[in-house]
């Protein structure tokens, strides 16, 4: 009997998706799909609005990474107000934005690792779901749970100080920033209250990385071979090849490390990136135009960023980067679970960057905004925690947005997530007569490694009940469970 298994929604990711797995009469997995079944309409909402509202409006896409949308929109509008493409801001304007951005990275990565991903590592993929969650972590590893909470809180406080509010702030404006950092604010982050200070955050970020590396040593089979497949990788890099999460040029490499997009200006991204539409998902499938729909897909996010950059410009993260790259003899790392490793190296880098920026006197300057000759069109690109984020706007003669295109990080990872689902389903479900909860969670684990934000990618509407449905070869419902 052929079967169709539905996992809906995927849990401990942001937003609502479902997975279908088709199994033929002989028990072979014949088709897998990650469906994004939410409606996306955000680009239409902002059409007709004054362009200067965009950085505040687009934050409403999501409550998890609003800062990334805020900054990507602001960067696009920097171009429109004639402030340049990321290098024309005042030192205070640029460094305040960077501090905000690294605060966002730090809190988002901490949230993902400690509270979404770590339960699978600590308790096992097929552990009882009743304990395989953050409360389980809190009960058995209280120190980790507390650190996760306070790291997230520290990042949120950085965001509040730079953006005005923890969520949906107003700090970045076209051409710069609307406030600097006071000495009192700086001191509060450098000195405490204990343990909420920059030194402690660097220490805890290092500790989280040590935790992962220790776990890796004892679970090499799981970490290295789970959902492993070759792919291309894309991210921003600084012009000298350094990791730069805020600004740079666009680089892509193939699975062997060869450059397939060589440090191009992202203002011209439409020459290099295209988006395919498939009828069974609201989320598009981006690809490198010159390689085509079949071969042009790529991964983004922490793993991609560590694969594309040449070095990390903070000392502790650089040391960890060298270990990471040495593990694959300098070749691109295509192991899905190594997203967690890469994410924790970035968490450490973000903590180091925050500490470094807090010592920079430019944060207290009063020259906040740059304006030049107005343009009709601008592109803002940023590395969001989940990957490369594109914002593209065109305005009319009345200063209204007449065109907006967003390619959000999770959309860039659409094809890789689909392949991850296929990889896990094929390896774990082929020939099996019974589909266990652990097998289904394994599919989610593969998706979760990408830290997708499906709301962000599509814009959520409605509630998100968990429902698992089983269909026979005629697509007739056999069983349905919900929780």
């Amino acid at each position, binding site marked *: 009997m052929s079967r169709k298994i539905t996992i809906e929604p995927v*849990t*401990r*990711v*942001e*937003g609502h998706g479902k997975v279908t797995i088709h199994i033929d009469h002989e028990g072979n997995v014949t088709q897998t799909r990650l469906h994004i079944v939410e409606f996306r309409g955000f680009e239409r*909402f902002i059409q007709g609005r004054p362009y200067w509202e965009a950085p505040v409006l687009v934050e*409403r896409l999501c*409550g*998890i990474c*609003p800062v990334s949308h805020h900054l990507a929109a602001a960067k696009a509008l920097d171009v429109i107000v004639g402030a340049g493409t990321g290098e024309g801001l005042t030192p205070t304007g640029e460094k305040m934005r960077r501090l905000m951005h690294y605060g966002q990275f730090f809190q988002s990565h901490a*949230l993902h690792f400690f*509270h*979404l991903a770590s339960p699978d590592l600590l308790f096992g993929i097929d552990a009882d*779901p009743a304990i*395989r*969650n*953050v*409360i389980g972590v*809190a*009960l058995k590893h*209280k120190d980790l*749970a*507390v650190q*996760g*909470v*306070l790291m*997230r*809180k520290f990042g*949120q406080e950085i965001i509040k100080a730079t953006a005005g509010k*923890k*969520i*949906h702030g107003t700090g970045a404006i076209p051409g710069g920033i609307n406030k600097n950092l006071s000495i009192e604010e700086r001191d509060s982050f450098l000195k405490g209250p204990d343990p909420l200070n920059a030194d402690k955050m660097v220490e805890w970020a290092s500790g989280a990385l040590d935790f992962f590396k220790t776990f890796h040593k004892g679970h090499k089979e799981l970490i290295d071979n789970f959902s492993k497949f070759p792919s291309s990788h894309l991210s921003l890099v600084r012009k000298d090849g350094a990791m730069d999460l805020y600004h740079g040029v666009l680089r892509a490499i193939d699975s062997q490390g060869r450059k397939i997009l060589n440090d191009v200006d992202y203002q011209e991204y439409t020459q290099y990136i295209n988006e395919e539409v498939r009828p069974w998902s609201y989320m598009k499938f981006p690809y490198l135009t010159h390689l085509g729909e079949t071969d042009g897909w790529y991964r983004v996010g922490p793993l991609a960023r560590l694969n594309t950059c040449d070095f990390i410009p903070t000392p502790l993260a650089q040391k960890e980067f060298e270990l990471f790259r040495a593990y694959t003899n300098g070749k691109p790392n295509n192991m899905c679970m190594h997203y967690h490793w890469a994410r924790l190296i970035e968490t450490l880098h973000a903590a180091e960057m925050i500490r470094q920026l807090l010592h920079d006197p430019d944060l207290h300057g009063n020259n906040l905004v740059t304006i030049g000759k107005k343009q009709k069109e601008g592109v803002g690109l940023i590395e969001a925690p989940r990957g490369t984020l594109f914002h593209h706007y065109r305005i009319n003669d009345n200063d209204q947005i007449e065109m907006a295109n967003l390619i959000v990080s999770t959309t860039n990872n659409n094809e890789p997530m689909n392949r991850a689902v296929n990889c896990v389903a094929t390896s774990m479900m082929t020939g099996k007569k019974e589909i266990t909860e652990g097998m289904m969670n394994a599919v989610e684990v593969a998706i979760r490694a990408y830290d997708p934000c499906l*709301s962000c990618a599509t814009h*959520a509407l409605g509630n*998100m009940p*968990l429902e698992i449905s089983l269909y026979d070869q005629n697509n007739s419902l056999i069983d349905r469970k919900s*929780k």
Partner: protein
Amino acid sequence: MTGKVNKGKEKPLKLLLYGYGNPGRQDDGLGNEFIYLIERWIEKEGLPNIEVDSNYQLNIEDADAIANMDIVIFVDASIEPIKDFTLTKVNPSASRIEFTMHTVSASFILDLCHKIYERYPETYLLHIKGYEWEFKEGITDAAQKNLDKAIDFLKGILKNPQSLKRYNT
């Protein structure tokens, strides 16, 4: 562990009012609007023991924010079939935790606070009835009336937190 309303007059109770919701979805912003309005009243009345906060949604760090409070009152919009507003006691619960961070509940925050800090404040949820949830800003007139009633009601509570005992069941 806290959890008892302090009867002594010498030590004022530390109270947190925390409204959450999405002001870009009409009445979903009732919790945020509540905090905006009540904060001015608190300042006018000179009630230093009461802190306020407002956010888009609850998240894990709120477990830390509530840990040192005696009383916490979360304020949220409601789609439930209530008349105008309700105040209910919140008990810790780990339910819905396997979901995303978009759907963290007050009871989950209380439970997490208890698990990692071994304490929890006496916690209540003020639900205010809303009606429209489209993608635009502004509370509807009908919800505004409910909001006004809820504010008047809570002013009495804030002046006499001991009266919360009647909602302890």
